[in-house]
């Protein structure tokens, strides 16, 4: 009964559309955590409790106002195999924790994949909204509107003083985590990145690599998100993040201009070498692929490479992850062959073939 449409193809709607500042900001994501008043949090809840949570939240999905967000396709995690779970994580449609740790977990994903409603993750309910480019405010507004609909039907765990009560003390208050994924190759190349990132972390924001679980910043992709959820209003959190991201965009743009005016030849050489390697390599590991793809993306942005759509880079970002790679070759990949197939797939996408 699970809908496999989301793992059949690597494209999400958001990857096709451009979005604001899409040369630097890949995507904007908001997640709000909520719990139902009358049940223990998932950590201590019995399977019976969790089943009731599912039932209660499933009722809410019948609310006609949710139709505005498109058809919501249900997926029960207990009926989903590991490969499909992995692919949903690689597309950022569900969290690693929902995929690996949840009991009685479920997710409802909108047709265009911009809205996922996760049930029985660390909290009973997590509403996620994912938009292309720099649209963090829009993402918050949509998530908040969905939150209002849920709140009409169920009683949330809420306290006058502490706000929305969550399983982890790091989410209490607003339950809001807003994050923006940025591609910052010029700041890395000009060695300004550490200075900027350490400044960011001193004002209540955190930075990490794109694939959540402790991944390093592969491919010059950085995820900037708020750390503080208590004591600031949602509007303050979003505004704070927005203004910091705007400043980083400004620095990245300036660094790109400087690279082009002062080291055009060296940048061109770097971009073209990476383009060459991706076009002809027979074996490539994920770390190198991410770095080369970043170079090519920069080359496209700077007008050094044409004939490749920037969206192809977004598609490759997902396709070169292990789950999607495995699926692309119908599961025929043996251990140790991953890097060979990754190289093959990139060659195909870039229109080259190796005899």
């Amino acid at each position: 009964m699970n809908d496999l449409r989301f793992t059949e193809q690597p494209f999400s709607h958001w990857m096709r559309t451009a979005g604001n500042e899409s040369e630097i900001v890949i995507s904007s994501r908001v997640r709000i955590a909520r719990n139902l008043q009358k049940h223990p949090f998932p950590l201590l809840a019995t399977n019976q409790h969790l089943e009731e949570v599912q039932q209660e939240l499933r009722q809410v999905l019948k609310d006609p106002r949710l139709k505005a967000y498109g058809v919501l396709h249900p997926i029960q995690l207990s009926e989903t195999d590991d490969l499909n779970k992995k692919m949903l994580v690689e597309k950022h449609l569900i969290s690693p924790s929902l995929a690996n740790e949840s009991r009685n977990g479920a997710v409802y994903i909108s047709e265009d994949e911009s809205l996922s409603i996760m049930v029985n993750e660390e909290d009973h309910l997590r509403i996620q909204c994912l938009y292309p480019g720099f649209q963090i405010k829009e993402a918050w507004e949509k998530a908040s509107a969905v939150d209002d609909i849920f709140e009409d039907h169920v009683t949330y765990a809420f306290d006058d003083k502490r706000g929305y009560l969550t399983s982890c003390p790091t989410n209490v208050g607003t339950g809001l985590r807003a994050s923006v994924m940025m591609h910052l190759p010029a700041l890395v190349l000009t060695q300004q990145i550490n200075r900027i990132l350490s400044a960011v972390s001193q004002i209540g924001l955190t930075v990490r690599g794109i694939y959540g679980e402790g991944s390093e910043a592969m491919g010059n992709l950085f995820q900037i998100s708020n750390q503080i959820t208590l004591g600031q209003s949602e509007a303050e959190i979003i505004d704070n993040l927005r203004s910091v991201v705007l400043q980083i965009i400004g620095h990245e743009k300036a660094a790109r201009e400087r690279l082009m005016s002062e080291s055009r030849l060296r940048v061109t050489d770097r971009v073209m070498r990476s383009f060459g390697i991706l076009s002809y390599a027979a074996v490539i590991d994920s770390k190198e692929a991410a770095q080369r793809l970043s170079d090519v993306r920069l080359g496209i942005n700077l007008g050094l490479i044409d004939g490749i759509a920037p969206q192809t880079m977004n598609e490759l970002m997902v396709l070169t992850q292990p789950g999607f790679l495995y699926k692309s070759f119908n599961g025929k990949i043996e251990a140790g062959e991953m890097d060979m197939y990754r190289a093959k797939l990139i060659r195909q996408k870039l229109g080259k073939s190796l005899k």
Partner: protein
Amino acid sequence: MLCQECGKRPASLHFSKIVNGDKSEYHLCEACAREKGELIPGTSGGFSIHNLLSGLLNFEAVEQGKRTVNPESLRCEVCGMTYSQFSKLGRFGCSSCYKYFNNRLDPLFKRVHGSTVHTGKVPLRVGGEIKTKRQIETLKRRLQDSIDHEEFETAAQLRDQIRELERQITEH
């Protein structure tokens, strides 16, 4: 320098966490960092936020241990989680834990968020009273302001508004 976790391998990851000016330093070997799970920005290993939290919580227990209830006996009457379990797991068992552990939470929230009181969104349906209370607080601040500026006419109006709102709350 040896890893602070295993004490055997040399520490290869060094990072500091700054929350509101309080700096904590961590020195870990790669194996321990990876074992810890989730995240240190910029490393391939990881270090779960819950580990960091339980560090903070244990610290709290040591600091206050002499003055307050023994963490073993402090317990949520609804879900049964003890404070010492909470400080190990870094997660609450149910919404009532917030009530039973309330006295211990201010220092924790202060460290994590720099603040202890929610100022954001309020649920529409159950939030009526909270909204009124917030309105009263705002009016009281304005009342104080107008007294300070000797604008007594405005002050009188504000006082009436506050009384009206307070009456609404007690009637509910």
